């Protein structure tokens, strides 16, 4: 040991440095976010609770029963059953088992009509596993619940137009997908547009 090292040890320089450091952090601002009372901002592309978009034009879901989501799901947690009734494909059963879902959002990317969505809502712990199996009504209800708490007037999910894929290869419906109006000016605009459309069709 050199003389300097001995002096450092005798004067406890390193301990004093440490104490200085902790005193600095003691007076600096805490970084805690007090979770249940204040929440962190959710970034676009967050994959949370499953929901089915309620189309503001029709008030129903946009699912056409193409089974793409069930086929693409790596965890195989989506069950779709369909029947041909009066020459039309009708979805008789639609289930997502959220307890088995791995939140890859492939179903959202694959859905040609942008009917499915993984919302930004991450607070949906429940007391039994049955409650995590969402059928169509529950998925629509999830959407309504989510929309009520969504701060903006419109909603658009990043995975409806899958990033990393050439936009020309998206289905036409996906290419034309616009942010969904939820409330306020955007919704009234949409309603007027729908009215005009109806009038036009009625006139012709």
């Amino acid at each position: 040991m050199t003389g300097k090292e001995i002096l450092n040890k005798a004067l406890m320089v390193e301990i004093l440095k440490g104490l200085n450091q902790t005193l600095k952090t003691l007076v600096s601002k805490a970084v805690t976010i007090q979770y249940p009372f204040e929440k962190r901002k959710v970034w676009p592309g967050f994959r949370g609770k499953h929901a089915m978009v309620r189309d503001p034009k029709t008030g129903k879901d946009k699912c056409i029963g193409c089974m793409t989501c069930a086929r693409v799901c790596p965890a195989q947690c989506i069950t779709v059953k369909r029947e041909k009734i009066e020459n039309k494909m009708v979805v008789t059963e639609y289930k997502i088992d959220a307890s088995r879902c791995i939140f890859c959002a492939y179903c959202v990317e694959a859905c040609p009509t942008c009917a499915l969505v993984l919302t930004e809502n991450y607070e949906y712990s429940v007391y039994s596993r049955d409650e995590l199996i969402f059928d169509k009504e529950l998925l629509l209800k999830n959407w309504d619940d989510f929309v009520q708490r969504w701060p903006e007037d419109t909603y658009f999910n990043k995975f409806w137009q899958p990033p990393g894929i050439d936009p020309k290869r998206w289905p036409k419906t996906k290419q034309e997908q616009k942010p969904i109006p939820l409330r306020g000016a955007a919704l009234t605009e949409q309603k007027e547009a729908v009215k005009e459309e109806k009038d036009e069709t009625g006139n012709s």
Partner: protein
Amino acid sequence: MTEFLIRVIITAIIALVYFGILLLHVAYATYFERKVIGHIQMRLGPMVVGPHGLLQPIADMVKLVFKEDVIPSQVDRVIFRIAPLISLVAAMTTFSVIPVNQGWYIGDINVGLLFVLGIAGLGTYGLILAGWSSNSKYAFLGGLRSAAQMISYEVSLGLSIVGVILLAESFNLTEIVQKQQQYWHGMFLIPQFVAYFIFIVAMFAETNRVPFDLPEAESELVAGYFVEYSGMRFGLFYLSEYLAMFCMSALATICFWGGWTIPPVLLKAWPWLGNIPGIVWFLLKVYFHIFLFYWIRGTLPRYRYDQLMLIGWKVLVPLALLNIVVTSIIKYIF
């Protein structure tokens, strides 16, 4: 005879009030600790129960009292029950002679300093007996460590105070405080800075606090000597640890910081400082030491066992002896 009885009753009432105040102090000392440690780690500490978590210690106390009192089947029942009481009584008794202001004490005895050191040393029996009677390896190791640590550091604690006793020419705590007023700086901290350093280090070891918390090392011995304790019996150990911290801080304040007085230099410069009651200065100084406990807990890791012994016997004891020699020579010459 009646006069004697009245005095006994009055003393008992004062002691009870003192006891209550100390319990409340311990409750909020835990809150203070959690806040300080939290902010050192850039957290907030308790925030939910009451405004800024102010009712947290009360919630903790209620929880401790209502917890099931588990006594393992293999323990030595009598000693297991007595051990926490020994450490609590030892910790409480020291406060009977500690003056918090001019004339504010329960008992004023000539050998106050020795009394405090002796009774504080008795508290070790509680820890050792708890470790022994629990019939558990962790608790036993914790008890052994506490025995070795207490013996080693009580030596340097006692020797460090000898310098103060030489300067004050008294064992009486009130007289020690009054003697410090003769100096312009009003505290033994300046002539006895080596002794103060030794006292602080030994104080941490005596109260089993970080960086010398080997008897209750949570990362190796789970909780050390009180592993098998639960509910209020655990609470009593907790209580006695915080009381010991308060007692040692009070002793450091009285012996080195001039107790409830302020330096005469300051008093001369700003005479209005004399209007502030002495207990305010006393508590400020004591809480500075308690803050020191928490600050160092938030900074330093635990020493190894051989390092603990090395610091105790090879550094602190020779340093304390040297301090006594130098102090005596200077005292003899001047």
